């Protein structure tokens, strides 16, 4: 049934669910993660969407088509609409990414402090280009370029998962990758 919300025109708008489209079939892990988060958002309102997406994303690392469909059906937010929102924000992934994502800042101050070389170094260390996931099945690590992280006074900087790493040196980068390899237990020449 509908649920009245306010759209950007300020009118009451209908959010309908989608009886004609297939029922979502997320993986059990995705569904569990989504259910855990959804339980914290009973009486969901549309303005809680971003916090909820952050929470789900933190657990799953990305939004698969089926997970998105599942969320759409549970939240009563149309699937296309939900995808439109998810695909708008750079921190949300719609393709498999590493459990941990390394985001190398490519803002101007970081560029001036060797961010480009840093990225190349990382590529060498991990053996993959930006946004290419590593590992079989559940990828554990990936790296990408990212817009200015606001750590310009500590350039070059990057994000390790959600945490900022400041004044990154090649040595620090090597240590991070080494620790990551140990933590995630990824073997082989991919990491």
């Amino acid at each position, binding site marked *: 049934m509908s649920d009245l919300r306010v*759209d950007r*025109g300020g*009118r009451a*708008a*209908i*959010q*309908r669910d*989608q009886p*004609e*489209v*297939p029922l979502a079939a997320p993986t059990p892990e995705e569904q569990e993660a989504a259910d855990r988060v959804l339980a914290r958002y009973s009486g969901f309102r549309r303005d809680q969407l971003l916090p909820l997406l952050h929470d789900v994303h933190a657990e799953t690392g990305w939004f698969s*088509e089926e997970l*998105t*469909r599942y969320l*759409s059906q549970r939240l009563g937010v*149309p*699937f*296309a*609409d*939900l*995808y*439109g929102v998810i*695909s*708008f924000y750079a921190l949300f992934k*719609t393709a498999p990414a590493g459990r941990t994502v390394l985001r190398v800042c490519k803002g101007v101050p970081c560029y001036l402090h060797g961010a480009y070389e840093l990225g190349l170094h990382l590529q060498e260390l991990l053996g993959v280009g930006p946004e290419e996931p590593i590992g079989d099945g559940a990828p554990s690590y990936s790296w990408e370029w990212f817009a200015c992280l606001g750590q310009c006074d500590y350039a070059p900087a990057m994000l390790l998962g959600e945490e900022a790493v400041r004044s990154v040196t090649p040595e620090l980068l090597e240590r991070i990758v080494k620790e990551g390899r140990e933590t995630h237990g990824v073997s082989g020449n991919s990491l």
Partner: protein
Amino acid sequence: MLEPVTLTVDGRQVTMPAGSTILGALNALDIDTPTLCYDPGLTPVNVCRVCVVELKGARVLAPSCSRQAEDGMEIFTDTPRVRDARRMVLEMLQSSVDTSTAPTLLQYAVRYGTQPDRLEGGATVEQPVRAGDNLLYVRDYSKCILCYKCVEACGHDVQKTFAISVAGRGFDAHIDTGFDVALGDSPCVYCGNCVAVCPTGALMGRTEFDMRQTGTWDEKAQTQVDTICPYCGVGCQLRLHVQDNRIVKVSSPREHPVTRGFLCVKGRFGYEFIHGGSERKHRRL
């Protein structure tokens, strides 16, 4: 009731009811203003920016389609600034989108003297035609100027079906069913109201698409006749586009009080039966 407002446009005064837009005032003065994303039946999204005008005292140009007319406004619609902005916007569209089936846009392009080849070689929104997921209409997003009309018509403003949305951002922003699923996996009800509002032919009825492919589509040879839909009892006015004694397209006049230009799947696409089929029970008597 709020007081009417009086504004000056290109030196001429015009008084408009409160709540009118600048475009309303321009129309009242018969000033032909280009619009691409504006549609009187939809909420203005003011994204195409070809309707911009100069507003005295404002830092930037104002979109006439959505900006409310205010008492004392001084508007200029044909200054070099306005013409340059309109021309550049059109050039940008021409350089990135296949505008071959967008007659209105091309007409504006001529009016403002665009030189789209200056921007040649840049990125375009070229992508495969989505023709395989249904036999009623075709989506060719290389022709999409992202005017949002289809999204508004499918969503809040008309159908509330919400089968499509704008996804991605920047130059990669595009119309999407969500992970680009086939229409059959979306809530689409095939009303074709997105097709009805599309200004560029990115959305097109299958018959028209096929005829254009084979080179048989000929608008000059077509007649348009208004009649009433043969299905339910709502009384939707259909405009039949006829070529060689066959219906090739169905639309509805935007000004009709029942439809306002919007139809359902049967009215828009369900006309084949009068031409008959090969099976005996479908054969015309």
